[in-house]
């Protein structure tokens, strides 16, 4: 029997809104033009809840909750941009910058980077935590693409798009916590991968300059992501 959608009403930032019971707070907020910043979320991919940029306050809950993975409930009262939330978001963002080597001025994605865009949008002008400056490899073995782990934020968009849309599952995450890293197949060079179809979807969903097209110079790498919701829709139809 087909499940019937239930409409639920809630309050986001003082505004009374409604949505289907299987929609997340993020979806309903966006349908109502309420801005919640995201990084690992991408329309067309399953939610991951990894970056924690979309945290919100829900009345009655002491901890902050990721809005991308929290379904709406009748009578919920949600706040999306209190000073406390903004402080946490900036803190998370600052930690992302310290974890790897994000040098915007010499990055192929300079000016087209979601991490950089978020820093601008959230007013992150300084990073107060010490930088780690890890020595990260650059995998330039693929004929057409480069993986620069210095610029990866582990959002896992590449892993999800490769698995869910392309169906190759070439990319995955190895290790945990600070040692986690995106790998190709069983940690082989990208150029050696037997499963990679070379479709380039991972490159275009990557929010930063971590996955890029070879030969691009600084600030030249613009990503195209319009294809994703369309591809997803066509897959669901078939």
């Amino acid at each position: 029997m087909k499940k019937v959608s239930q409409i639920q009403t809630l309050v986001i930032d003082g505004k009374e809104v409604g949505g289907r019971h299987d929609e997340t707070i993020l979806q309903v907020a966006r349908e109502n033009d309420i801005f919640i910043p995201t990084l690992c979320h991408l329309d067309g991919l399953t939610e991951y809840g990894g970056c924690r940029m979309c945290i919100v306050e829900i009345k009655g809950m002491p901890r902050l909750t990721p809005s991308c993975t929290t379904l709406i409930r009748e009578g919920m009262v949600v706040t999306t941009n209190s000073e406390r939330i903004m402080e946490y978001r900036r803190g998370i963002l600052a930690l992302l910058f310290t974890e790897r080597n994000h040098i915007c001025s010499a990055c192929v994605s300079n000016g087209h980077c979601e991490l950089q865009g978020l820093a601008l949008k959230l007013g992150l002008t300084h990073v107060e935590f010490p930088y780690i400056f890890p020595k990260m490899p650059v995998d330039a073995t693929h004929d057409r693409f480069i993986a620069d782990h210095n610029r990866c934020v582990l959002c896992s968009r590449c892993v999800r798009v490769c698995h869910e849309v392309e169906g190759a599952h070439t990319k995955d995450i190895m290790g945990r916590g600070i040692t986690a890293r995106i790998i190709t197949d069983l940690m082989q060079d990208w150029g050696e991968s037997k499963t990679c179809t070379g479709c380039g979807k991972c490159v275009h969903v990557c929010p930063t300059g971590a996955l890029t097209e070879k030969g691009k110079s600084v600030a030249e790498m613009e990503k195209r992501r319009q294809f994703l919701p369309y591809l997803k829709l066509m897959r669901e139809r078939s």
Partner: protein
Amino acid sequence: MARELIIEPVTRIEGHGKVTIFLDDDNSVKDARFAVTQFRGFEKFVEGRPFTEMPSIVERICGICPVSHSLAAAKACDAILGVKIPRAAVKIRRLLNCGEFIQSHALSFFHLSSPDLLLGFDSDPTTRNIAGLAAKNPQLAKDGIRLRQIGGHIVEWLGKKRVHPAWVVPGGVNEPLSIEHRDMMLAEIPEGIEIVQKTLSFFKRIIEEFRKEIRTFGNFPSMFLGLVDKDGNWEVTDGYLRFIDSKGAIVVDMIEPTRYKEFIGESVEEFSYLKSPYFKPQGYPTGIYRVGPAARLNVCNGFSTPLANLEWAEFKDLERGPVLSSFHNHYARLIEILAALELEDQLLRDPDILDTHIRAFANVNEYEGVGCVEAPRGTLFHHYKVDNKGLMQWANMIVATGNNNLAINQSVLQVARHYMNGPEITESMINRVEAVIRAYDPCLSCSTHALGQMPLQIKVVNNRGNILSEKMRD
């Protein structure tokens, strides 16, 4: 007891430098050293990066001449791609270098050096700066700012940013010149030429007052290096290496810059982070050669543009052989601004300049590439090696100021000997030591901030390192 006199930081230059003057027991000047006190490390930390990022990474070496670094880097990268870049890209890059020369030379002449020239080397240091200049001769200060703007516009209208544009890329440039911007550039040229001609006549009028400085500011025989075009004329973007000796005889000519290592050796001194290149056949340290505006005018057969060529002929008449005094770099800078404006006009009127085929694409075809241009301060070399994946394995850069390192040391020694009278450290001597360095317009760091506001610290230190006296100037 032997003493050391330290001037740190040297003001109104780009970057952080220090001068140490060694005094003998009888207070005569024994030696002088010019040291660059900051370490940058670009050659090392670019290792492992994709070579396509190089033009933008090396731009960060400098806020004044990023264009020169990006051009040298892009040419080295072109060689790695193994491509011949489209004709429009060659011309449009030359146009960009015109902008760089105009804005950088205007900064050096008007902002950094003209306070010395106009207000006098012995005037009050608190007003001997661009603000003091604006008070005494507001038109000259305004002219300087306007000229810098005209040069800056070329860079900005081509690369979308006045400082650090990400526009020069391996294989060409990434956007063509629009008709609108071409016309806007053309409209500014007559005013630029008028300003520089006015300033040239002003400079020629006051030059007589500086006879002593001309005689003592880095006035010694040395070799000169500069790029020339295929006819031996002045060239700053795509040329061949030419060395002349102190008498003006051509020693090395029409050499592809890729062969630079056959003629230039690189030595390192413990006291400075700046290396000391030398003319290899003569060995170190006797192989002193100079680069920069006066050197370029010394090595070339003339200019291919009419107004600059007339000025060049007059400049060459200053001396019988090459013009040896580094003081005349100021003069040469003005002539080069004029040449850059004329060349800009020629390039903008060339129909090729608007062509939209501006970039060649390729993968790595060569594992090694050398790029060379004339930066405003002198000949600039970038030499890269990559692996088969295009990741940088090794880089060597000889920046303009590096070429002049031995000559700057010798010039400081000459000035210190001439102006050091007895045990007293005179303001007059310190001013001139700084000014002779400024004549080379060295770019030490480099950064966009002018250091005119920084305090000058002078220490007299004995040979055991004890400070005997200290002087601060705000």
